């Protein structure tokens, strides 16, 4: 009988053995994770360096000379280049757009998932098709529509440009519309996967369609809604093309537009660009870290075993 070094589960030898088996995995994973993070780290570090340093020496030097860091780039970019205004603009554009998309898509997805009506399948198929339509196909007519339909209202607080080019409502609606195919597709699939019995039970219990929607479907779909919200938020926040075309006024420009114009004006002044870029990234990164758990978590076991 051969003697085997079979380590018992949980014993130090066993732990070490399993770690050794996994070592290549660990190495590979950590290597890639670092590799992937380097560009972002480079940006971050550079943004804190003195203008002179950035263009003369590699950013890695910053690690060895931590005391040469400064916030001057940020001051410059925020105060003189209007990045602060751009930040607020990005917020104003993104938050309502995200909200509208999720709301409108949820309503429609509910109908697609759980109601019968003539043409349901055909309509959904058309929508699935719309998923892939490139924005370019739609922008010229939409721009024209907006220029024709520009509405200005002369009112104290709510006044100003109500609709059309350079209007907030205009851009909200555009972003909401562009986000719909994906949102409806995602939510409809999720809603459809909810156990039918739960909905039937609620129906027998006396819930109306709206009741089922708000009391059951939405609470049970939070992971999908969270995921959608993140996607949509990032999508709108990071959008360039739509703002470029529908929003010409620099006062209203979101950060993407701002950074883009900085690049074309100051192509090699990396100290400015890195700071500006980082500001535009800050919020998405925060949101990503905060909500990531949501969409990694998934739905927990419900009323049915397994």
């Amino acid at each position: 009988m051969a003697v085997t070094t079979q380590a018992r589960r949980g014993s130090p030898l066993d732990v070490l053995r399993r770690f050794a088996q996994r070592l290549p995995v660990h190495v590979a994973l950590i290597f890639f994770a670092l590799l992937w993070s380097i560009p972002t780290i480079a940006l971050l570090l550079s943004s804190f360096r003195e203008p002179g340093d950035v263009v003369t020496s590699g950013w890695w030097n910053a690690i060895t000379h931590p005391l040469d860091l400064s916030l001057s780039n940020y001051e410059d970019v925020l105060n003189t280049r209007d990045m602060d205004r751009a930040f607020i603009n990005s917020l104003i554009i993104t938050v309502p757009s995200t909200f509208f998309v999720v709301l409108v898509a949820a309503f429609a997805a509910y109908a697609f998932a759980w109601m019968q009506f003539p043409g349901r399948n055909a309509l959904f198929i058309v929508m699935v098709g719309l998923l892939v339509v490139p924005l370019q196909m739609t922008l010229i007519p939409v721009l024209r529509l907006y220029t024709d339909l520009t509405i200005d209202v002369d009112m104290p607080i709510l006044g100003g440009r109500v609709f059309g080019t350079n209007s907030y409502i205009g851009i909200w609606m555009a972003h909401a519309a562009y986000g719909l195919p994906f949102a409806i597709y995602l939510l409809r699939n999720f809603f459809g996967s909810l156990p039918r019995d739960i909905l039937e039970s609620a129906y027998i219990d006396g819930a109306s369609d709206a009741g089922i929607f708000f009391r059951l479907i939405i609470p049970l779909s939070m992971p999908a809604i969270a995921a959608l919200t993140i996607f949509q938020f990032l999508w709108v926040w990071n959008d360039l093309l739509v703002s470029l075309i529908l929003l010409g006024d620099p006062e209203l420009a979101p950060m993407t537009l701002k950074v883009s114009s900085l690049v074309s004006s100051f192509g090699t002044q990396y100290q400015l660009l890195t700071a500006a870029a980082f500001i535009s990234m800050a919020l998405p990164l925060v949101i990503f870290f905060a909500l990531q758990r949501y969409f990694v978590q998934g739905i927990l076991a419900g009323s049915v075993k397994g």
Partner: protein
Amino acid sequence: MIGRRWWTPWIWLSPALVLLTVFLFYPVVNTFVTSFMDADSAGGIWDLIDDPDKFVGLDNYEFIIDNPRPLVSNTHAALYNNGLWLILFTGLTVPVGLLFAVLAARVRYEAVAKSAIFIPMAISFVAASVIWRFMYEFNPDVGTVNAVKTELGSASTAWLQDRGSPQTPFVDAGPDSAWGPLQVNNFALILVGVWMWAGFAMVVLSAGLKGISTEVLEAARVDGAGEWYIFRRIILPILSPTIVVVATTLVIQALKKFDLVWVMTGGRAETDVVATLFFTEAFRQGEFGRGAALAVVLLAWVVPIMVISIRRFQFQEETR
């Protein structure tokens, strides 16, 4: 359900339908019409009604095919580059994403590792462009990639301008250079795309991986299958619908690519893609008709994807 009024579903659908019609259906039709019109036709159908002379038939398409002004608007380069993006971008991102998903699933710090890869997705293409312009900077004292390259002994490359020593359809690099399909600068751009989207592929594939019941894998292990065999014969087939989903999304991204190219190179040095060319033509040159035609070309490329996803969707429905 008994008792539901016939108009109820339509009420739930109406906001979406209105938005979709105004911003998607109507414009698509209109752009299509505009592609057959001449330069000053932003209004599409309406302009045509006002002034039927604007109709120029297939002129814009001919322009795209003939490429009469390659120095200003190189349509061939744009089309070719889009093709490159399609193949390389998708072809690299999916395996990379899958690799990460599989690797990360085996460690306890999975969530952290995945975040690191996923972060680039959170940033805008514009910010990414800044990051990578910085990375690709020619001067090895500034540009990280070239710094590494010079450390390793070779000369630094102008990643974003270099049309590549291999001879490509667009660059005559001299009689001694070999023909290669890829210009260095295009490749550099595509790499940035992969950097950004690998995280997406990873997250989706990771969710797909988790959906594979452990019992199936355990049964295979008990049967004596090795890890690689399990991967190839069990995991991949079960994942294939997910892979298709990821791949189709990436293909769409590749075709739509605008921001990245625009900010990094502005389409110069033959890195133009159809989307950037569209913008230049329509909004810088005022050639709305040509712009529309380019947009239609994009749509045409996308149609097969549309068909695939619709077919797949219908198949899924049957098995629901």
